[in-house]
């Protein structure tokens, strides 16, 4: 059965989705999501083990050999993504039961779980596929399910945010599709390895250059790179807490992986960074994203919007690492991708818990609550320090790696932007701490202790698991570091695959 | 002869299109588009003959069917909307 793992990786969550819709018993949809998440985590772990010992694993769908059929490729460059996505799903599954019960009306719950399964399947498929059109199909599945979940948010604003994301995201997906179509017209193949072989020369082909631009602009929308980030804050902040926890950890991260995959193993670094100089544009946008995202986060009045804007900045860090196109840069980007995913998931999960207990996470409503809810706020503070990059959190390790990579290439302006952005991060995290611990609670809005519902242990456990993981990765970064290094060398080393 | 029929159909399509653009009200447009649809059915049938591909005719059947459903849907649903917003019919451009 181990030979079938790559297919099972996607098939398990995909099969759980229609089952969620079919069963009406109350807890079954949740259980199915747990099965999907744990099943994919097991598959990912086993696959990671196999890749570490045997190298790249290929799987031919329908037993049709690669260019004719679709193949799944598992290699060092996507095992971290598979692990990250399925781990995030598993933690979310633990968090989901109480959170969904509190936030979503009963009629919609099984639809939400079905969409969670679909998003999971889509993201995993996007990570594992070795075929460009198949990647587009999985991109569509995950995006469509995400739009639906965002629209289930509690306020009417969620509908607006979802609509905005639908419009922008669809344009992005169409751009990716146009790019894939152009690449097909130039090569006659959709298989990534085959494409890479046929694109090794002929870099002055204008159709090919346009293909690169279209694919990357489309992916930039999905990654929420700076000028195309407009959908992100609303989408993350208005979605149900489970959803923002899950997609903040995975959505943009998988898009970054796909970006790397296209840049290094499909179009080739020589074309993307050598001829078209995407690296300069990437670095410039990354620097802008860091500054704008962090600055905007400082001015937010709502905790979840603050976190969402900080994500815009963090995408900048990751993009900067990728755009360096050096082994150390890509490795740092992967490391930051993992660390930031864990940290941001912890923060959104904690914010979700607050929403459930207080009804609002406007900073003014949080004043002076630090002593009443020490555990939740302690989690927010530790994870927040991770965002700033204070040792011994994971954020410090990956930012340090990024700084080293930037210095190596002498990218001083980006380095300055990064430091400035970290200082701004200190400002907005400091603001949370100040409001929560050092401000007096407003007398009028004082809640009686009995009024707030009991804290569900499963949610707290999920939050603290993520927080402790952040700290652990900060103290002992060998595991994520090893994965990131292997990924970077797999991407940069062997050109074709 | 078949080519001549094709040209005639194309000219008719353009004429119907002009009516669809000019309006002036909703019913004129529906009429024009319905006629355009019938002409497309014929066009596909004739094209199948001209280029020697009779399996185009399946598409012709589909067009005829779908065109009818769409016309009924426009009539039915545009009427609903009128009731909701309380405007009288035929709001043109």
């Amino acid at each position: 059965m181990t030979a079938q793992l790559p297919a099972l990786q996607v098939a398990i969550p995909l099969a759980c989705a229609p089952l969620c819709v079919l069963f009406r018993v109350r807890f079954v949809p949740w259980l199915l999501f747990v099965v999907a998440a744990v099943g994919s985590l097991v598959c990912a772990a086993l696959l990671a083990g196999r890749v570490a010992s045997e190298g790249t694993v290929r799987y031919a769908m329908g037993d049709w050999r690669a260019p004719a059929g679709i193949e799944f490729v598992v290699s060092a460059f996507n095992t971290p993504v598979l692990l990250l996505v399925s781990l995030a799903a598993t933690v979310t599954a633990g968090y989901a039961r109480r959170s969904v019960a509190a936030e979503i009306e009963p009629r919609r719950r099984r639809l939400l779980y079905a969409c969670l399964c679909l998003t999971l399947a889509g993201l995993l498929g996007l990570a594992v596929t070795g075929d460009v059109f198949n990647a587009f199909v999985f991109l569509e599945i995950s995006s469509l399910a995400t739009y639906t979940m965002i629209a289930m948010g509690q306020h009417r604003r969620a509908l607006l945010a979802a609509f905005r994301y639908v419009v922008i995201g669809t344009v992005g997906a169409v751009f990716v599709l146009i790019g894939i179509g152009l690449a097909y017209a130039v090569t006659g193949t959709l298989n990534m390895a085959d494409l890479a072989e046929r694109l090794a020369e002929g870099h002055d082909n204008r159709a090919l250059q346009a293909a690169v631009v279209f694919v990357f602009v489309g992916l930039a929308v999905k990654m929420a790179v700076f000028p195309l980030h407009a959908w992100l804050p609303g989408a993350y902040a208005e979605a149900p807490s489970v959803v923002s926890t899950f997609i903040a950890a995975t959505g943009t991260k998988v898009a970054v992986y796909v970006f790397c995959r296209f840049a290094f193993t499909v179009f080739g670094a020589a074309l993307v960074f050598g001829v078209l100089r995407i690296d300069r544009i990437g670095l410039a946008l990354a620097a802008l994203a860091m500054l704008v995202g962090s600055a905007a986060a400082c001015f937010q009045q709502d905790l979840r919007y603050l976190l969402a804007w900080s994500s815009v900045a963090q995408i900048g860090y990751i993009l900067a690492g990728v755009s360096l196109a050096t082994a150390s840069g890509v490795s740092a980007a992967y490391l930051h991708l993992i660390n930031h995913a864990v940290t941001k998931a912890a923060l959104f999960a904690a914010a979700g818990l607050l929403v459930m207990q207080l009804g609002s996470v406007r900073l003014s409503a949080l004043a002076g609550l630090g002593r009443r809810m020490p555990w939740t706020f302690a989690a927010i503070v530790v994870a927040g320090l991770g965002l700033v990059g204070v040792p011994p959190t994971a954020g410090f390790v990956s930012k340090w790696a990024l700084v080293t990579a930037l210095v190596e290439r002498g990218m001083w302006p980006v380095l300055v932007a990064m430091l400035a952005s970290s200082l701004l991060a200190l400002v907005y995290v400091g603001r949370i701490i100040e409001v929560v611990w050092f401000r007096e609670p407003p007398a009028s809005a004082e809640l009686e202790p009995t009024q707030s519902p009991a804290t569900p242990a499963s949610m707290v456990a999920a939050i603290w698991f993520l927080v402790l993981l952040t700290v652990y990765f900060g103290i002992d970064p060998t595991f994520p570091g090893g994965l990131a290094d292997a990924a970077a060398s797999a991407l940069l080393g062997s050109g074709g695959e | 002869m078949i080519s001549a029929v094709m040209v005639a159909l194309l000219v008719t399509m353009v004429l119907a299109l002009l009516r669809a653009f000019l309006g002036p009200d909703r019913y004129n447009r529906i009429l024009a588009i319905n006629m355009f649809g019938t002409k497309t059915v014929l066009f596909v049938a004739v094209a199948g003959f001209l280029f020697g591909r009779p399996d185009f005719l399946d598409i012709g059947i589909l067009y005829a069917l779908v065109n009818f459903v769409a016309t009924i849907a426009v009539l039915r649903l545009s009427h609903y909307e009128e009731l909701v917003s309380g405007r009288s019919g035929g709001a043109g451009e």
Partner: protein
Amino acid sequence: MMTFVLTNVTLLVILIATAIAISRMRALYEATMLGALFSLVTASLFVLLDAVDVAFTEAAVGVGISTVLLLGVLALTRSREAVTPRRRHLPALIAVLLAGGALGYASQDLPAFGAADSPVFSHPITGTYLHQSQEDIGIPNTVTAVLASYRGLDTLGELVVVFTAGLAVLSLVGPPARPEETMPRADFHLADYRIIRIISGILMPFILLFALYVLFHGEYGPGGGFQAGVIFAAGFVLYGLVFGLDKAQRVVPRVALRILVSLGPLVFIGLGLATMLLGGQFLDFDVLDPNHPEEGQHLGILLVETAIGFTVAAVMTTVFFSFASRGVSR
């Protein structure tokens, strides 16, 4: 040849004129109808390109179901476009010009139309699809072979996309109302018109028969599960439009719809898991009949197309009924 060029140019001009007319129109019903016209012309162009399956899909989806669904949406909202503030025009214009410019730039190096030495034609997989498929799978319509077997996973993905879209509508608009919750409208009852009632009654069986023909003829001619599903749905929609939602729900009950929506993806994935258990790869239909791989492929393709057909029909019908019952109940 002359006629061919003339026809193509005329259709292209019609297409562009329609697109401009749509973009300048504020009355959305009219825009939707012109959109249907646009799809008709596009489908005709696909016919001329000899892309019969694409033309089939475009006609069934673009002209039929998407027009009906758009109209259903318009019946729930305002039907006149709000005036876009002028300051929003400029960024949109810039974005469109940039994208168009990039496409124009790309078109300079694209292979010539129909060139025999283009990369797509010279790539070995084109040969595989066109010739090898006759031995491997043995069905005349190569499009179906590629769609259901060679790239079956993509098709599964597309089916899941349709399924997800159905979930999205269910979560946003809510499920179709129960028959007893809907109140029949006193006004424009098409069912009161004897002619349309009788004609629709006569047409219904033919529509469903045609859908079945499209479903099972997909191996030989244009068609397949997606198109057949849409035609089924068009039939039910017509029935609902003419006879009213309550009657239509007696024909296709809510429970059946709910099960059918999930059944398609389940059958498709289940088929993949079954081929795994039989010792093959995911969606390797050869193992369904180990002694005659070709027969196995036929069986697999048939099951896949049927699964697609049922789910697409169920999703489209559900979506339409949901929209319609929003307008009728309350």
